């Protein structure tokens, strides 16, 4: 029968306030979390998609593609000494003119030249052609459109769409390395790179000796001048990523803490209010554990309702917001994570009432009027 759930059903009005507050908190938690996920995706999607053991930068680059350059002899060394698969990488941030849009209506584009497999991106479509990130569709770009890149208006034609490959908040355009070098050298003469020189190398070492990471192996072969990062490290080295994550996680942490306080306060009040009822329960032979279990059951039930409503709400918000307007990314993982955090907060919040439940004296059930 579960008396705790019966109470929820028979006297729902009593639980409306905490459910409403928890729902708002859950929406906030999921929305902010989705915003963080969206921001991170926008700045890291492309780097995340690079398929390799490590990415090799020059050591003064601090992991920034734009500040890094790696000479061809280093590439040769790694390839030969480690029998490694090496692909050149480079990216250039440019404004792109889109047919049909006004002359000042530029789309921000990250032009990637790649030789290495990119998760979700096919091999380069050929000279003067590129795979466009779907975000470009928000700018009205269609397959077959010719985008004019940078001040020199270097043309690249969209061959098809790829998903989740944004970089630095900009949509990526994936081209072969020759096309990329042409675009770079034509539009950024100050950063021009000679044939064979890349910003970074994606390296996969097929067989490292036991206990040695791919990074160790590369440092062993090329002893100076390089910064070797895993894909995850390279992603965190993108300016702002770690800071964004830290800031948001602090906000999310405070939000969860508020949920905990709300649950703690509400159930503390409820426990005070129900002291005489609990005394009767105890006089009838209920243990403190049974009673406290009832409290937890109610807190979990309230949280479940709140998170369910919130989940629906953020999915609706996500659907209603026009794509590209804010970087919101709502995923089942984020919703689940928020729910789990709230359940933990709810259970912990109930903990504050435990002492009061333990101290209820069954003798108080004896006298007085009900």
């Amino acid at each position, binding site marked *: *029968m*579960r*008396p705790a759930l*019966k*109470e929820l059903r*028979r*006297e729902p009005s009593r639980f409306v306030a905490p459910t409403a507050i928890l729902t708002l908190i859950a929406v906030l938690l999921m929305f902010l979390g989705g915003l963080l996920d969206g921001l991170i995706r926008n700045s890291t999607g492309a780097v995340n998609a690079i398929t390799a053991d490590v990415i090799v930068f020059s050591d003064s680059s601090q992991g920034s593609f734009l500040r890094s350059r790696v000479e061809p002899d280093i590439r040769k060394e790694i390839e030969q000494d480690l029998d490694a698969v090496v692909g050149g990488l480079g990216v250039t941030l440019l404004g792109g003119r889109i047919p049909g849009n006004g002359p000042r209506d530029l789309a921000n584009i990250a032009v990637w030249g790649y030789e290495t497999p990119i998760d979700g991106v096919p091999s380069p479509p050929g000279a003067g052609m590129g795979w466009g990130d779907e975000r470009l569709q928000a700018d009205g770009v269609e397959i077959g459109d010719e985008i004019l890149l940078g001040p020199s208006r270097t043309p690249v034609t969209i061959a098809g769409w790829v998903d989740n490959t944004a970089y630095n908040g900009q949509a990526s355009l994936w081209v072969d390395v020759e096309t990329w070098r042409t675009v770079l050298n034509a539009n950024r003469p100050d950063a021009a790179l000679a044939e064979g020189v890349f910003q970074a190398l994606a390296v996969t070492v097929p067989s490292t000796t036991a206990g040695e990471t791919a990074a160790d192996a590369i440092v062993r072969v090329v002893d100076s001048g390089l910064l070797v990062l895993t894909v995850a490290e390279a992603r965190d080295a993108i300016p702002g990523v770690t800071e964004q994550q830290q800031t948001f996680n602090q906000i999310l942490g405070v939000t969860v803490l508020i949920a905990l306080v709300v649950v703690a306060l509400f159930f503390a009040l409820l426990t005070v209010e129900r002291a*005489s*009822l609990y005394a*009767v*329960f*105890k*006089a*009838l*032979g*209920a*243990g403190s554990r*049974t009673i406290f279990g009832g409290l937890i059951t109610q807190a979990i039930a309230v949280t479940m309702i709140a998170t369910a409503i919130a989940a629906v709400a953020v999915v609706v918000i996500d659907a209603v917001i026009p794509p590209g307007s804010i970087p919101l990314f709502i995923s089942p993982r984020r919703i689940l994570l928020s729910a789990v955090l709230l359940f933990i907060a709810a259970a912990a919040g109930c903990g504050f009432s435990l002492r009061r439940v333990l101290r209820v004296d*069954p*003798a108080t*059930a*004896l*006298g*007085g*009027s*009900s």
Partner: protein
Amino acid sequence: MITSSPALEMNEVRKVYSVAETEVVALADASLTVAQDEIVALVGPSGSGKTTLCSIAGGILSPSEGTVTVGGEDITGYDRRRLTRFRRERVGFVFQSVNLVPFLNARENLLIVDEFGRRERREAKLRADRLLEELGLSDRAANLPGQLSGGQRQRVAIGRALMNQPSLVMFDEPTSSLDTELGSQVMELIRTEMKSRGTSAIVVTHDDRITHFCDRTVGIVDGVLAA
């Protein structure tokens, strides 16, 4: 239960409440034996210690001195945990203030006892339905306490006290809120229920008119028992 020991044996039980600096002697060297199957009326003025005696017999309060044995089980030295278990399994209580759970209907107020205990579920449901029928509440099973009359609430409380099949039931003023006729009906019911089960009972009252439903009357004045 077939044992030769009496349902209740209280030996020189003292209960002293200390309030601030003063001490109130609620029970003074009370010795009382309730035989199996016996219904004892406990009669005395207000504040004489009737509720206190019932609570000690039912394991809700611990005596300051003396020993309490219920159905051969000496509960004198029990800690809170064991007393809780004892109450759950061995005794029934009808409180002076009835104390039904307001958000549970009549049937659920009976079944809640099963929630606290072994959780027999099916068996408990059968027992609850049978009790409700015996108590004439079958058609009120789905009513919340607020939708029941005082006499009906009193009967639900009696049913709840019998749910765990106790060997001893304490009725603390079960008729105080009822008029004479209804009080007699409830007492009749208590007697029938007790005798058909062979359960012992202490019935607290300060109404001399209902003592004839009991096998024996014990008086109490200022915490002192007088047979």
